[in-house]
């Protein structure tokens, strides 16, 4: 199996007498290298995408600093403690979502922010972590695979925050939170029969979903199915990003030389559509390099999940790795026209702060799962 080779030895004896410095700092070297490489790549592209504005790069660098700080801090927390915190964090998150609906700030036409005086905080971000933690906590209480009632309980625990987030309305985050919960359930051993049943129900529910969507969400789906129908409205993003990527060819137009990006045909080029700038300037070669980097990080995370010493760690790590993958897939899929336009950034590359901190917090937990392992007893 492909993953097998990426797995470190299950043998706990990496010489426990002399734990390495990284082990003592609770850092996972392969993951750390992958993340640093990804961030360096992202900053280089951002410099071009924001018209060589060093100010943007500096601000992004500061956010990255903060995000790595959060990762490092969380890596120090042992999964045992994390597990005991899970229900509490989940509860606080859901309460804050309710608060946002009642008193939240309206930013860009959607209610997402909670103004805490000093900082503005987006509680839905917290749920991207809290949901997999909660599911892991629930499943780990009994031997895996979970029984049907347990699965149903988990489903309710996932859907409550998701519906609250969808009301804000924030489709992108709702999808990511569903993905986080579902991924945790899947890794935890959700039975194949149930998976088929859920898929069938989802297909049947699709029309219902359609009638519950907001106008702009419906518009996006329609536009996705036929971008040319609205070339100046929401189809504009998709058409322009495909022109950017397609005109890049195999080796691209060269760094800083993308005409689509620099002549301002491409909107949101340093945020959600930065993938198109990569395609235009660095070509297929540059994009594949980026995808390989993502693949490496995802596989390493899955390896940590498979290798964790208890069910909580396994389910949590699996859920977190899959959220990261969903980020990558939804964003790239949107930019190249495979998926409708939803506001999901390209993880650790797009300009912006909130999701970056959440993602790195997730990697902090992954590192904690890997480095706080007790000796596995067989």
């Amino acid at each position, binding site marked *: 199996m492909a993953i097998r080779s990426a797995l470190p030895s299950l043998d706990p004896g990496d010489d426990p007498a002399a734990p390495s410095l990284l082990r003592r700092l609770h850092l996972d070297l392969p993951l750390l290298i992958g993340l640093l490489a990804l961030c360096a790549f992202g900053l280089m592209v951002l410099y071009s995408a924001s018209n060589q504005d060093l100010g943007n790069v500096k601000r992004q660098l500061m956010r990255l600093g903060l995000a790595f700080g959060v990762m490092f801090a969380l890596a120090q927390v042992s999964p045992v403690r994390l597990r005991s915190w899970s229900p509490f964090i989940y509860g606080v998150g859901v309460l804050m979502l309710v608060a946002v609906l009642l008193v939240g700030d309206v930013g860009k036409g959607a209610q997402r922010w909670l103004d805490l005086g000093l900082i503005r905080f987006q509680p839905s971000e917290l749920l991207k972590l809290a949901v997999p933690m909660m599911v892991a906590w629930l499943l780990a209480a009994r*031997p895996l695979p979970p029984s049907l009632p347990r699965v149903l309980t988990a489903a309710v625990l996932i859907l409550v925050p998701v519906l609250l987030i969808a009301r804000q309305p924030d489709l992108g985050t709702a999808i990511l939170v569903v993905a986080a919960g579902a991924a945790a359930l899947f*890794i*935890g051993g959700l039975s194949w029969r149930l998976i088929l049943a859920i898929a069938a129900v989802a297909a049947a529910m699709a029309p219902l979903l359609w009638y519950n969507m907001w106008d702009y969400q419906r518009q996006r789906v329609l536009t996705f199915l036929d971008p040319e129908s609205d070339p100046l409205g929401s189809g504009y993003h998709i058409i*322009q990003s495909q022109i950017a990527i*397609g005109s890049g060819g195999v080796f691209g137009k060269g760094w800083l030389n993308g005409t689509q990006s620099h002549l301002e045909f491409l909107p949101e080029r340093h945020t959600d559509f930065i993938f198109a700038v990569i395609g235009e300037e660095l070509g297929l070669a540059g994009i594949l390099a980026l995808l390989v980097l993502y693949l490496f990080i995802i596989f390493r995370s899955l390896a940590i999940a498979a290798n964790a010493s208890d069910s909580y760690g396994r389910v949590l790590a*699996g859920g977190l790795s899959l959220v990261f993958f969903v980020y990558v897939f939804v964003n790239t899929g949107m930019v190249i026209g495979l998926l409708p336009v939803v506001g999901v950034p390209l993880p650790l590359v797009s300009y912006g702060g909130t999701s970056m901190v959440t993602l790195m917090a997730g990697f902090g937990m992954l590192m904690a799962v890997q480095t706080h392992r007790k000796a596995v007893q067989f």
Partner: protein
Amino acid sequence: MLRDSSLEDRRREHHLVVVRAGVVGVLVLLALALVAARLVRLQVDQHEHFSVLSRDNRVKVQAVPPSRGLIYDAKGVLLADNLPSFSLEITVEKVEDLDGTIAALSAIIPVDANDLARFERLKRQRVRFQGVPLRLNLTPEEVARFSLDSHLFPGVDVRAELIRSYPRGALTAHVLGYVGRINTEDMARIDTSDYAGTHFIGKGGVEKAHEELLHGHVGHQQVEVNARGRVLRTLEGKPPVPGRDLHLFLDIDLQQAATEALGDNRGAVVAIDPRTGGVLALVSKPSFDPNLFVEGIPQPDYHALLYSPDKPLFDRAVRGQYPPGSTVKPFVGLAGLASGVVDARKAKYCPGFFQLPGQAHRYRCWRRGGHGSVALEQAVVQSCDVYFYDLAHSMGIERLQGFLREFGFGSRTGIDVAGELGGLVPSREWKERARNQPWYPGETLIVGIGQGAFLSTPLQLAAATATLANRGRFIQPRVARASQVPGSPEVQELPALTHAVEVGDPHHWDQVIRAMTEVVEGARGTAKRIQTKAYRIAGKTGTSQVFTVGQKETYNAARLDKRMHDHALFIAFAPVEDPRIAVAVIVENGGHGGAVAAPVARQVMDAHLGGSRLLARGEPGDGD
């Protein structure tokens, strides 16, 4: 056995997770393969098709900058306007032969050496793919001439934009500041996407302090362009949110009167309405023409301003830090009353000097022969140094500096004029930190008469005077009163911070205000020459030492260079019964406050309160 079955469970669990992780891995690979396949289709199979589309791209999104809010004075006089202007811009990235293009352009539109120098400078600082202005302020004929031949000049455009204009020029330069082109330094502190179409930003004064209100928010429009990027028509978009207009407390007529009152002197005048904290006039002389800075001032002109010995670019009103001299005595007197160190009825004896116990050094009073026996009121009226040496010594520096800080000395007032400095009230802690030296008792005495390291801005003096006139209600001074969405009737007042200064017995205010009234209205007052029948004034003169006189020397103005002369200071408020204006005046190297600075304050108060312009006759004051 139980133990075995739990072990068996664990094995099964682990196996389950490994299998599931494997399945996920395969799914991830499949999904990314799908993405890669799609990319190959776009970037390899359809590459030709998209390259053509990219070359002929016709619709793009442009940022539409908001119009900057206008600024009006208290009576609705326009102080900052936006005027339409045409400029000729070159997008360097789109031009193949730059020198040739400029040469050909000069043939139809005059371009001089200044224009070329500015173009070179702005070209170096430019943001890629953004136009760099070659000529500004094109005449309509020049615009027409270029339009005829524009097809010969790809990458060259005439751009119409609104340029900031300050109709009152030098009169408002320091208080309003000015706008200038956004540079890389500005880029670091703004939301660049909100400034996508904006080229100017507030660089000082009110323009910088209220940048957020004045700027507004960017809009977008989709435009159809031809292959050269020239706009053919506008399709749709979201309009910008215009910046808010500002209505000031500042009265431009009073500003003018204060400027004229200073004459040819260097100095500053700050006038505040004690009831609102509103700044009625904020003058720093000499000044400069802010309109020169909007489009970038030519280097030689800039150097002439920058290196002039009169420092016209320096805003003395909010950045000039001077020892407050004797003008601080009413506040020190209040400190003494509030802390119980002095009693207004009890006199001290002034032999012309003060000595600390056990020290030979004589701290001199400005009057060599001494004032004899003086109580608080006469100590303020005659500005007796010895009285305040004694008071400061008994009070101690910690209590004294704490009280002075309550009046706003020693820290920025927070006025909405960018660049304000905070002055300095010396303290033990400050001296430890700044000079790594212990505090000497003699320094406390010097603080008591407002000299030495003690520094205050004219604005701080005016704010403290207004607080005194208000009997302890400190209102943060501000220039802007309210903001308004252009064209809408709704006016939003800007908030003011206030706090109360406590002095224990409210009679202490009366005692100090009575003393300050005697300074002007009394027969022996140091500012009696500015008496008027129209209203009663409370004031205090001061001088601020530029040159330190040695222990055995005397200050001899005739022997010193003019720039070493003392600065003349005066603070005042009027009418005493119902204060409507508080003024602080500093005249650099003006000599005695009573003779030079007080008449300036009188003219400002006359202009505001409508009193007589004639100075009351009287003997010149006895210095201070």
